[in-house]
């Protein structure tokens, strides 16, 4: 009795934690971590060979060689590039596991291809249908020494997992840093113009999760970015989610930087505006991601024909956001457009626009122009979808307006 009273008295009179702790413990690995320096224990290789069937591993290696050849020829797809990253990481680190619905059949985009055939049904498991809970299950695995990858066929289905995803983001901090929880979620999402998938396959899940603390959020619209970021995210010791463009998984082709992990906190400058256009005031910074990248690249010709140019920045890191790269560009162009495949309310563009206004106000000659989806269920009918989902043609107009100083 007395003991209990004593401990209460002592607890009550002890000081509170320092305020600075509030912002610490968000990520077990700092945002600027170089994942190429991450190592695995010496026993890893031995564990891999002893726990995998030699013939299956050989077939997997053969498949990897095939993928690398495609990459060298500039012909690897986004789905295959992520598959390559996953297979490499699963061979490198035997604690890496993967889960997906329909995994044995390669899921929708071949992302988990050959994982089950190589590593067995325990390390590469077909999920029952319950997105909400298999994210939670992955958390449990992650907290107990494993490195789970979860593939959502379409990120819209991740909406079921909001509760578990919040839990994922919060766990490191709420446990006082006691439990690291490496978890990588990979899914195809975003909204392509004319994707004709209807409202419930077109929601901006990437926007919905932006506010979750402790969750690293990346996007990739090219095989290079997808491969490099996937490798990093898998090695990262906290929860991360990587969005890929649902309508370009097999159509966009490119190469990969073999074996290289890309940073998870940097935006990518895909096209620099010419010095001439900058000094003439005819250059505009364009921020975009997922399908917007191809839309912007395809619109480049017309934009140039108009006598204008854009500095195209891909937001490969949605959270944390790379404000330095954005500011550096804005210091040259002083005009910025965001081609955003999320909604007017609560979208990615909304967050980025607010941040730019707050932190780069002096660099702006005009308000941030946001080309985003309306607050409406994305229609299936093409005629209606055009009105809701912004695309290259909208960007061309917006660039003209920006240069002509039209608000």
């Amino acid at each position, binding site marked *: 009795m007395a003991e209990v009273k004593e401990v209460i008295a002592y607890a009550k009179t002890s000081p509170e934690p320092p305020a600075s702790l509030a912002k610490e413990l968000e990520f077990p690995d700092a945002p600027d971590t170089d994942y190429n320096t991450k190592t695995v224990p010496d026993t890893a290789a031995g564990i891999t060979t002893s726990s995998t069937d030699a013939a299956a591993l050989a077939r997997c290696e053969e498949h990897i060689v095939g993928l690398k050849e495609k990459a060298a020829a500039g012909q690897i797809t986004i789905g295959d590039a992520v598959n390559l990253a996953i297979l490499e990481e699963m061979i490198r680190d035997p604690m890496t596991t993967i889960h997906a619905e329909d995994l044995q059949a390669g899921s*929708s985009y071949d992302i988990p291809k050959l994982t089950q055939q190589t590593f067995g049904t325990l390390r590469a498991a077909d999920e029952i249908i319950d997105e909400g809970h298999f994210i939670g299950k992955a958390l449990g695995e992650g907290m107990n020494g494993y490195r789970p990858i979860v593939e959502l066929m379409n990120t819209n289905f991740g909406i079921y997992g909001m509760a578990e995803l919040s839990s994922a983001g919060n766990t490191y901090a709420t446990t006082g840093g006691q439990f690291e929880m490496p978890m990588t979620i990979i899914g195809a999402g975003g909204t392509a113009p004319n994707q004709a998938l209807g409202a*419930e396959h077109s929601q901006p899940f990437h926007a919905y999760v932006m506010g979750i603390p402790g969750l690293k959020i990346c996007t990739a619209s090219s095989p290079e970015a997808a491969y490099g970021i996937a490798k990093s995210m898998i090695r990262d010791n906290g929860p991360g989610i990587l969005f890929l463009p649902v309508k370009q998984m097999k159509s966009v082709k490119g190469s990969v930087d073999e074996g290289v992990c890309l940073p998870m906190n940097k935006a990518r400058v895909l096209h620099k505006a010419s010095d001439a256009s900058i000094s003439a005031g005819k250059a505009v910074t364009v921020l975009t991601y997922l399908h917007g990248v191809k839309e912007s690249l395809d619109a480049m010709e017309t934009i140039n024909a108009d006598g204008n140019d854009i500095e195209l920045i891909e937001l490969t890191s949605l959270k944390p956001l790379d404000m330095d790269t954005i500011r550096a560009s804005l210091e040259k162009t002083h005009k910025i457009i965001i081609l955003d495949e999320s909604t007017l309310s609560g979208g990615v563009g909304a967050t980025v626009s607010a941040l730019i206004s707050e932190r780069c106000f002096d660099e702006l000659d005009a308000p941030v122009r946001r080309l985003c989806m309306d607050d409406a269920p994305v229609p*299936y009918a093409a005629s209606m979808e055009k009105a809701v989902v912004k695309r290259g043609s909208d960007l061309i107009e917006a660039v003209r307006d920006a240069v002509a100083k039209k608000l």
Partner: protein
Amino acid sequence: MAMKNIVMRAAGARLLQRGGCSNAAALRGPARWSSSTQTGFTVSVTDDDMHDAPPPTMGDGGVTPFLGVKPADTSPALESCMVSPDAHPTWKLFRLLDEDGHLVEGASMPPSVSAEEWVRMYKAMVSQQEMDTIFYGSQRQGRVSFYMTATGEEAIHIGSAAALAFDDPVYAQYREAGVIMWRGFTKQQFADQCFSNVRDLGKGRQMPIHVGSSEHHFHTISSPLSTQIPQAVGAAYALKQEGRDNVAMCFFGEGAASEGDFHAALNFAGTLEVPIVFFCRNNGYAISTPTHEQYRGDGIASRAVGYGMHAIRVDGNDMAAVYAATKAARELAISNSCPVLIEAMTYRVGHHSTSDDSSRCVPTPTSNPYSYSFSLSLPPRCPHRSPMRPFHQPKVPLNRRDQEVEGGRRPDQPVP
């Protein structure tokens, strides 16, 4: 510590006023031990009661004093207390017709259905399959962007739909087109939705096959799986408050029954005691995932026990049996204001949708006289059998009073 006053009030006192139909009385099991709702009395347990009542005895036929569980003896025998999943009740498969249209031993056709109605139902099954065949081809030709067939499951659609009242609200998953078609949704309306034109009732919002019509009491199909299940419970709750003689009818596949929403919904339906029929189409596959990787229990019917409701397992390829089971479940649900689960066993003949190729991992049935447009070879012990076949040449009178359809009609013979 003072115990709260516990007052258990009969939910839905109207139940006492429900006549129920004669079949329901026969189907009603022994009064459920845990509920007072069927008798409609109020029980009030206060502190005084607890002090005055003698303490419950244990062992030797004494009753365990715990709330929320079935009363049972206590026992020191560990082995008899640890219950294996094999000890739970088994479900016989309810079936009336064999593959050739003979009644199985002891069976009789549902008496309230006339020969004309059986013929109409048979035609509806054939029509459903034809529609699927043409639309599937249309997708492969690039005219429609997406489609999902329900081939092999036609008996489920028509058998269950015919047993419902027109205004029973239906919440479906996506493989139940025959249900809305039975209610009169036209092929034109279906095409309008698939092509997403100006006449689409969904006003261009949804992908193909996501049909819905308030006129037909069929809620618009929604892409995320199993969201319809808790919603159907809500609909049933509305019905209960209104005191209507209707059920909410909720369809889903065995894969969708893995979603969290399924479990929450069944639990709600049981605790709130709502008139709902949960209809699970167990067709063996969820995209490529077979049932043995989807769950470990005895199908979906076995889950009903955990949620405190009746369940029946029926041969989903036997339209007569599906009809009879649905009718009975409906009557039970209305008369007792309770949920009932039907698990219809069948086989998904086609692909999950036009976006996958299941021939790599799902055995597909053989080309046969009732040929499917995408059929390969039937593996041994494949649970598929054609729903149409028993009705092509039924060996039994479809109605005792109407002999002229004995012998049935082959698909190549003209329809009067």
